């Protein structure tokens, strides 16, 4: 395989110090992800999945080790430069959606573009509309989060992650707060984006979710204990057609 390397970690460690006790959340992670891959990161609760995701997403610093994102070493960068990296290269989707309350879907999606410091003159409104169209929410643009279902809120969050065309899309348990049918919808969306060439990393502890990816990484006690390709990949879009239409999610029709 000679696809471009999007990100690479070498010996990444993270130790939380709480008073006298030290928690070794990550104990040396070596991970290479190529462009256009879709990875699932699985493991028991407390195995360090979120910690790894936060470091990959430039939200936190590793205690030791190197992290190279899009050919740039980011593990020693200043807070401000890291903010730029998050803005330009990373799309993060959270379990709890993390949308701004009392702010319309469109304004939420515009937000990353407002913090753009590249000096480009961006057609903010158009780009946000296009991102919302990609996640199938063109007709909900003026709705505020409390007027949207969980699945719709998560799709707004995905649109917000996509709007600045990041190098990598990260999702920490994106279906954790959703019911099974909405979960499948969101997974189908991730697979669709992946099919369009996006690099996607999804943290999950559900096997159903993990099998949507093409490669699976398993963590235990802060170490990678398994890294393999998935032989029988699940198609969420296909599963969606098999599911009966439920009244709760009728708006998806």
């Amino acid at each position, binding site marked *: 395989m000679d696809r471009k390397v999007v990100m690479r970690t070498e010996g990444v460690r993270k130790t939380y110090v709480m008073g006298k006790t030290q928690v070794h959340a990550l104990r040396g992670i070596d991970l290479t992800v190529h462009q256009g891959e879709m990875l699932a990161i699985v493991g028991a609760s407390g195995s360090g999945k979120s910690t790894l995701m*936060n470091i990959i*997403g430039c*939200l*936190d610093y590793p205690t030791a080790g190197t992290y190279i994102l899009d050919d740039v070493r980011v593990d020693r960068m200043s*807070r*401000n430069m890291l*903010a*730029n990296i*998050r*803005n*330009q290269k990373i799309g*993060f989707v*959270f379990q709890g959606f*993390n*949308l*701004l*309350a*009392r*702010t319309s879907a469109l*304004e939420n999606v515009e*937000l*990353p573009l*407002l*913090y*753009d410091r590249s000096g480009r003159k961006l057609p903010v409104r158009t780009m946000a509309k296009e991102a919302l169209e990609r996640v199938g929410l063109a007709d909900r643009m003026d709705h505020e989060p409390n007027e949207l279902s969980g699945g719709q809120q998560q799709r707004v969050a995905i649109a*917000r992650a996509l709007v*600045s065309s990041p190098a990598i899309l990260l999702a920490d348990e994106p279906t954790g707060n959703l019911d099974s049918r909405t979960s499948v919808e969101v997974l189908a969306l991730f697979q669709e984006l992946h099919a369009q060439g996006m690099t996607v990393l999804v943290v999950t502890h559900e096997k159903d979710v993990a099998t949507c990816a093409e490669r699976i990484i398993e963590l235990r006690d802060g170490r990678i204990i398994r890294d393999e390709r998935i032989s029988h990949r699940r198609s969420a879009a296909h599963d969606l057609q098999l599911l009966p239409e439920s009244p709760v999610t009728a708006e998806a029709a």
Partner: protein
Amino acid sequence: MKSSTLIKVASQSILKNKMRTLLTMLGIVIGVGAVIVMVAIGQGAHSQIQKQINNLGTNLIIITPGASSQGGVSRGAQSYNRLTVKDVEKIKRESLIVSAVSPVVFTRTQIIGGQGNWRATVNGVSTDFPIIRNWDLKYGRFFDQSDVRQMRRVVVLGHTVAEELFPGEDPVGTTVQVRTVPADVIGVLEPKGQTADGTDQDDVILMPYTTVQTRLSGWSRIFQILASTPSSRDIPAAQAEIAAIMRESHGLSQWEDDDFTVRNQNDLAEAAQGTTEIMTLLLAAIASISLLVGGIGIMNIMLVSVTERTREIGIRMAIGARGRDVLTQFLVESIVMSVLGGMIGIGIGFAGSSVLGQVTGWHTVISPTTVMIALGFSAAVGIFFGFYPARKAAALNPIDALRYE
């Protein structure tokens, strides 16, 4: 972030929490309103007094007996009255600058005539008096040199006295009785209004000082000498010249201090304005305390709002906001709120001082400077009290802020 986007983001967040915004601004609104009203009262008093002092006459110089107070100790108390007609005549003769000079002798007495009787102050003055006080006649004429020389029993009535004794009539040509002395009314003065301390300047009658000295008070000493110069620029020179003439007239050797005081209108104004300035300052200081309390209110709410909005800060940072962006956002929010509050406060200050003016009859003045200072001050309050909470918000770690429940 561009400044236009910044203002947009800040005003969005202000509008999204109308109640919080309103409560935050209330302190500033009340503070600025109070400052405006207080300063309006102070400045109103100031301009009122200025008007009344200008009303005294043009380029007025006042000579009174006794030394001026020095170092706060009045040495005039033990000096006896030493102004005489001789002094007046010497000034009139020798001064090159002074254009008019008049002695003043007072006495309070009963006046009978027309509709009844009235108590008024009798001012014995010379023919220069109307020039010095810039006081025109409504009816008749003022007394002339021969009236003064002959000690004629002629009287010019102040407007109030004329209205009391002869309401709605022209009393010229009638006779009134001043204490026991019958006197011909030869003129009536134009009304001049009240002085700074509220005394009615029109409650007065004027007679030749010679007549007052010989027929009413019976003594030759003079209470005051009034003089005036053609232009206000001449006043300092005239004061010096008068002082020299007076020293000569009183035969003072060079080791002796003046036994009289020469003051001008501005000295009077300064004394009076000193009081109103202190009053304005005091009122403004009291009102500023409420502005300070308003500022602390802003800081309080902003601090609460930083905690309350920790998650929002985390979200903004996660998608690329730098600490500086968060700092500016919170700072702009607090400045916008305090300036908006300041503007409402100015509106309320205007309304409040005009209502107060109507109810109490006080004169109130709001100058553009006051408004500018009030606006600047509320912006400063916003920056000062908004900075600490804003810095606290900016210092948050994205991951901690996101995890905050």
